[in-house]
């Protein structure tokens, strides 16, 4: 436990974490604002792309917007690993705890904690936006099985993406390189293969596709969501990615010579 606290202390004694948190909340906030502002507006074919504010579909889909923060969670995960190599603090870390498996375990746990904390932050923001919107629109806040599933999914997605970032950081080590890789993967690659219909059979197996499956409420904001895996399968795919990258983080950190 001391080691997990030390890992969390490493993050909280530098400034990056709250900059990242703030940027993430602003990003998610803009997405929320956009969806709320245009909710119920008729699309090109006369049908609303975004369900109207008083509908249950609106509430269910809005809860899932927080997964947009996953990108920042992944970057934070990358930084939690790569800053050890960038500033060579990994040397000190391993001098204090030469049994490397303990360091790796502590890092994985700390990363999960950070991911869940980020998830709670975006859910709090979403909840706030939803309460204000729904109350102004004159509706009631509703809690359905779908809402529950989406809430848990947002937490899981952010936690797993933070682990994904940690593993990628352990693999690439160069901080800038790893951040570029994570941005390229999540922002460009995943978006592309999930947006181009011909590539969607591949896209549903990507972290992005799996995330979309987890929070899928049947509302695609104009995009087709029928190709996605069922929610449970999406969860498993995402878990598999997180485990794969945690394993990579472990193997590389356990064996590497620190010169």
């Amino acid at each position, binding site marked *: 436990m001391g080691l997990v606290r030390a890992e969390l*202390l490493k993050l909280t*004694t530098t400034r990056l974490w709250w900059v990242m948190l703030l940027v993430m909340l602003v990003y998610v906030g803009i997405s929320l604002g956009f969806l709320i502002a245009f909710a119920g507006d008729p699309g090109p074919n006369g049908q609303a792309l975004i369900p109207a504010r008083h509908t249950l579909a609106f509430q269910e889909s809005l809860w899932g917007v927080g997964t947009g923060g996953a990108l920042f969670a992944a970057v934070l995960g990358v930084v939690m690993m790569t800053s050890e190599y960038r*500033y060579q603090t990994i*040397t000190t870390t391993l*001098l204090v705890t*030469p049994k490397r498996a303990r360091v790796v375990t502590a890092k994985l746990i700390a990363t999960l904690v950070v991911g869940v904390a980020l998830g709670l932050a975006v859910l709090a923001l979403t909840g706030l936006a939803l309460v204000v919107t729904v109350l102004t629109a004159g509706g009631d806040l509703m809690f359905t099985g779908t809402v529950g599933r989406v809430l848990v999914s947002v937490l899981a997605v952010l936690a797993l993406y933070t682990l994904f970032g940690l593993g990628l950081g352990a693999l690439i080590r160069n901080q800038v390189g790893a951040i570029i890789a994570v941005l390229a993967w999540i922002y460009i690659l995943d978006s592309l293969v999930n947006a181009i219909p011909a590539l969607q059979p591949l896209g549903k197996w990507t972290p992005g596709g799996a995330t979309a499956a987890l929070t899928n409420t049947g509302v695609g904001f104009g995009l087709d969501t029928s190709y996605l895996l069922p929610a449970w399968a999406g969860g498993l795919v995402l878990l598999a990615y997180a485990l794969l990258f945690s394993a990579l983080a472990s193997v590389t950190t356990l064996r590497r*010579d620190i*010169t």
Partner: protein
Amino acid sequence: MAAIEIRDLSKSFGPVRAVDGVSFTVEAGTITGYLGPNGAGKTTTLRSLLGLVTADSGSALVNGRRYVELDHPLSEVGAVLEATNFHPGRTAFNHLRVLCTAARLPVARAEDALARVGLADVAGKRVLGFSMGMRQRLALATAMIGDPGVYILDEPANGLDPAGIQWLRGFMRHLAHERGAAVLVSSHVLAEVEQIVDNVVIIAKGRLVRQGSLAELISNGQAPVVRVRTVRSEEFAATLERHGGQVEAADGVLRVRGLDVESIANIALDERVLLTEMTQERGDLQQIFLELTGEEQS
């Protein structure tokens, strides 16, 4: 049991044999200088000793155990590796606080350590603004946080100004000679450590070339030489040779082997010869070092 025991240690990085069959020991209460040119394998040896690098063969033990087997490593070994081992955005105190948390040491140790290296005033400052000397002091603070009995210092004088080097020497003496710690300090500059080390281990191109006390290194396996100057040098040379000395004469100076300063003085007194100079020649340590490590003197 030696505080540090390295036996037949070898490590290659790809085709480069960084350390090749190195063995030496360091005893408690002594300072051992681990000397060699840059790239000789000093850092690789020390990093193997600290479990950061996995050796190909041989063993490196601290207090009789491998570093990775130590339960409370900071309480047994303090290490200073590079001056840049700090996150620039973290304060000096927070850096040590992270260490204390991970090592389950009371946070008060962080304050103590900062005070002992003279950084108490800047404890709350971020490392970003620290000079090289301040970073080196902070590194020493991290090494002493668990009050260990073994110190492993890799080029600790790098980047220190003359006052800092002076401070460092006093500090190492204090650790070894007053607190009884074993100190292993590496350097590529002999002059940095020659005043304080008890023993030297010299390494070049991954291989150990000399090991022993500083005095043994200075004599370099040869009898000490006494320089004698006198007006009647030829006569006196013959006299000394009769007494068993080997004399080499050049420019009116006699270089005498086989007789010590006191016997030469006695002979001169008996023979009523006026000496105008007599000194024990101190072998040019830097020259010996360069010869041993195969470096050309520039």
